């Protein structure tokens, strides 16, 4: 048989022996994978993982798996960041230790991973875990769709990881601007990996977002009006709506680019009627709302954490809801500010500059609302609160530099410079990542029944915050000096000291990440002393704290009836936080199914086969995806019943824990 027919473009040359560093990275991935598989086998954990996790459709377990995926990808993306900081700290007047091609793959995978495979799964994980609990719901609207969303995202992430071992990754940056990413300038499979990873993960995200919208509209606890929803649910709703409306921009841009590359079309090529600026428009019609998809749920986390640790109600709930909705709508009106420098006339640029400045208003209002929430509170400084405070102080700096970039004549100077890089890291690290870390620390005791270690959490916090300032403030300075993004090397001696400071900052962040790993290990080791099933670890105000920690599979034995904001806080104030019914009803929960996992595996195969032009495999994968969809639609036994006796036992155990806690307190 013709090897081309069998293997497409895939040959042994695809193995990463082009540089020892790339080969080392690939070996790390392969050995790491082998070690994980070996460890699971040694622990005989395969059955447990399969039945309890991989085939689960429980929103809580899916949420946890999303976060695990995000944390693994955070490590990968951060290694990329360290490599870049090391390269630029060295490469003054010399070529550094990375070739341009390798350096370009590193910055492309760093951006792609941090946005699509760290940020998105992290926040979808937290949304998955928290939203149904806060709504007083037993699950999301479509549990299987939820699982498919997770496994499609994981398939996209797996493609990015696979590119490290087999073939190369894109060198076109996370934005993948053509014509550079067209076949004539990027003939390798790197861009194909990038396109397929984004298309597959984007499909998963769209499905999850639809799921959240329906869940929030249809599954709220009896009596809970939209304006009685916790603010985090509002931000989850806005982010999901944004995802549904914005992601088609990326899908179309990526799809058309794929048509150019696979079928010789000319949407974005330099010849044949292509126009690169069409790509730029499509990409940023997605790309700007994407920023708010990432940041709004983090705003929701801060709006949950700050009142809890101020021991006070959230200030200006209505205003925060309206501000969030304003931001969501306005985010679709500003995309052109990403390319003021394309030569549009002054009226166009001024319009988009003005629209961008408008977004600063609701954002500024939110900051003041958070400060007013703390005003006349009783502030406790546990790690979730520390992340929130660092966020407020750091985020306003990023907001200022954002307004600077929104003024077209200033953007003409700062566009493509390290000032821009410093700006968006200044938004996304405090705005998104600190929010996700705050949410991770805040809801960890809910999810596992024991808290994270505070001492190591504080160490991680300080290393991260100091590292952030050291890593990114020098980039602002370099931007003023005219240093641009994506340089493999440079020849301006006065820049080097700033790059070295930035590299030291990255090392501080490394210590922060190491502290977080130690924190996790220490917390797990001490769990026997710290575990508490009773549930309300922080003195929370919203319904997720009215269940046990961890919550039972069915979340609520009796659905709460809600007539106010902060329902759990109000119930506690009235002295009736928990209602114990005389008898329990049996409950219906979704059965486990392997459909989600198989969907993800087939999507990975489809992506991999398409990247390497292995058309028979791509065809099989498509037949498999269609086949499993049809087969699943004939399945009738998709739920199972938890008997009332089992529920009564679970609830009794929880009640005893609460009584024991009250006994301790007295």
């Amino acid at each position: 048989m013709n090897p081309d027919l069998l293997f497409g473009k895939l040959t042994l040359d695809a193995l990463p022996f082009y540089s020892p560093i790339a080969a080392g990275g690939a070996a790390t991935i392969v050995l790491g994978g082998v070690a994980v598989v070996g460890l699971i086998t040694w622990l005989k954990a395969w059955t447990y993982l399969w039945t309890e996790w991989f085939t689960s459709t429980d929103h809580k377990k899916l949420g946890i798996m999303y976060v695990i995926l995000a944390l693994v990808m955070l490590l990968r993306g951060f290694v990329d960041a360290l490599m870049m900081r090391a390269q630029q700290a060295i490469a003054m007047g010399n070529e550094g230790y990375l070739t341009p091609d390798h350096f370009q793959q590193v910055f492309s995978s760093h951006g792609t991973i941090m946005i699509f495979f760290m940020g998105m799964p992290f926040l979808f994980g937290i949304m998955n875990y928290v939203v149904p609990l806060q709504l007083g719901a037993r699950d999301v609207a479509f549990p299987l769709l939820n699982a498919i969303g997770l496994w499609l995202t994981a398939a996209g992430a797996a493609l990015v990881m696979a590119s490290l071992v087999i073939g190369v990754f894109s060198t076109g940056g996370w934005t993948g601007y053509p014509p550079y990413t067209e076949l004539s300038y990027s003939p390798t499979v790197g861009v194909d990996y990038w396109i397929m990873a984004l298309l597959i993960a984007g499909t998963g995200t769209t499905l999850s977002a639809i799921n959240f919208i329906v869940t929030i509209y249809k599954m709220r606890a009896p009596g809970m009006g939209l304006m009685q929803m916790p603010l985090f649910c509002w931000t989850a709703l806005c982010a999901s709506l944004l995802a549904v409306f914005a992601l088609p921009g990326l899908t179309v841009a990526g799809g058309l680019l794929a048509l150019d590359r696979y079928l010789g079309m000319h949407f974005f090529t330099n010849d044949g009627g292509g126009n690169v600026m069409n790509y730029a428009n499509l990409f940023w019609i997605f790309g700007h709302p994407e920023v708010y998809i990432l940041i709004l749920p983090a705003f929701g986390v801060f709006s949950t954490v700050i009142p809890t640790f101020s021991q006070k109600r959230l200030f200006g709930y209505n205003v925060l809801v309206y501000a969030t909705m304003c931001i969501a709508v306005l985010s679709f009106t500003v995309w052109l500010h990403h390319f003021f420098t394309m030569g549009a006339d002054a009226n166009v640029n001024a319009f988009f500059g003005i629209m961008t400045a408008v977004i600063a208003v609701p954002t500024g209002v939110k900051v003041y609302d958070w400060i007013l929430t703390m005003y006349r509170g009783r502030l406790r400084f546990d790690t979730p609160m520390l992340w929130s405070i660092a966020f407020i102080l750091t985020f306003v700096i990023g907001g200022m530099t954002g307004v600077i970039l929104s003024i077209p004549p200033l953007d003409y100077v700062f566009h493509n410079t390290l000032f821009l890089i410093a700006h968006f890291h200044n938004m996304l690290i405090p705005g998104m990542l600190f929010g996700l870390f705050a949410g991770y620390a805040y809801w960890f005791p809910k999810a596992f029944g024991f808290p994270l270690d505070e001492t190591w959490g504080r160490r991680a916090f300080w290393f991260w915050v100091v590292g952030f300032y050291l890593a990114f403030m020098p980039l602002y300075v370099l931007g003023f000096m005219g240093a641009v993004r994506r340089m493999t090397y440079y020849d301006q001696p006065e820049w080097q000291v700033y790059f070295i400071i930035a590299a030291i900052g990255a090392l501080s962040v490394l210590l922060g990440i190491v502290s977080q790993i130690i924190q996790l290990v220490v917390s797990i080791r001490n769990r026997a002393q710290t575990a508490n099933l009773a549930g309300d670890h922080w003195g929370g105000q919203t319904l997720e704290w009215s269940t046990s920690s961890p919550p039972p599979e069915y979340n609520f034995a009796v659905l709460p009836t809600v007539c106010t904001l902060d329902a759990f806080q109000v119930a506690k104030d009235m002295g009736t936080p928990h209602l114990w019914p005389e008898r329990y009803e049996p409950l219906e929960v979704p059965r486990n199914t392997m459909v989600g996992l198989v969907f993800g595996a087939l999507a990975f195969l489809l992506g991999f086969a398409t990247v390497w032009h292995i058309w028979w495999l791509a065809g099989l994968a498509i037949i498999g995806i269609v086949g499993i969809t049809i087969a699943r639609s004939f399945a009738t036994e998709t739920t199972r019943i938890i008997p009332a006796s089992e529920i009564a036992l679970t609830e009794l155990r929880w009640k005893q824990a609460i009584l024991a806690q009250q006994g301790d307190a007295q």
Partner: protein
Amino acid sequence: MFKDSLFDPAGPVSAATRDLFFDSVGLMLIVVAPVFLLVGFVLWRYRAGTGAAYKPHWAGSRAVEIGIWFMPVVIVVALWFIVWNRTHALDPYKPIASGLPPLVVQAVALDWQWLFIYPDENVAAVNRLVFPVGRPLTIELTSDTVMNSLSIPALGGQIYAMAGMETQLNLLADRPGVYDGRNTMFSGDGFSAQTFAAEAVDVSGFQSFLAQARASGDALDAAGFETLSTPTIAGPVRLYSTVEPKLFHTIMAAHGSMPEMAPAANHAEHAP
């Protein structure tokens, strides 16, 4: 440390941009500075265990809410006027007022070099842009490769160079000097070294540059351009004594979105 940057402007465009920078930062500090002061005050005053006032149910106040909307709105409305006026005043397409006619240079982005054609003088230079100080400079841009962006920070902002399209950048140097210029838009392996010297010289210096170019004896014809446009990293400075007529538009037409159309008249121009 900020030599020949926005903070050390070498021309009226960059000087006006610097003023705009400080104006906008000053305006924003009206909203941002109180945030730092308030956060510091609130964190200290209301930390647990001090016995300070505690109002757990205080969750809204019409007067305060109007106030926190009002201040950012006022600032942003002020910003609108600044954005509208300065975006028009500093439009890169706007010719710079001067008693002298602008010097027109046609810049072509290559992999990974810059070609500068002087159409009126019929000479060309590679990786070196020489122009008279005090006289407006009009740069017309296109690309023979992927998207590029031409920037000379000492003089002002940047504009994209795109294949098949013509964009424009107007600058002026009011003190002589050699300034860094570069492509700021990632374009591939040679991107990091895609820099050029932007030399603002007096009139006699410019004349001697032209004479030097004319004495070089190299002609930039179709074959010469073919050689020049092969990918080159950190290429040398070159001078050409003559340039094929309308070479800039020939390059644009080679990437024209509608080959049957005349190049310059249609899609090539952006907004006037």
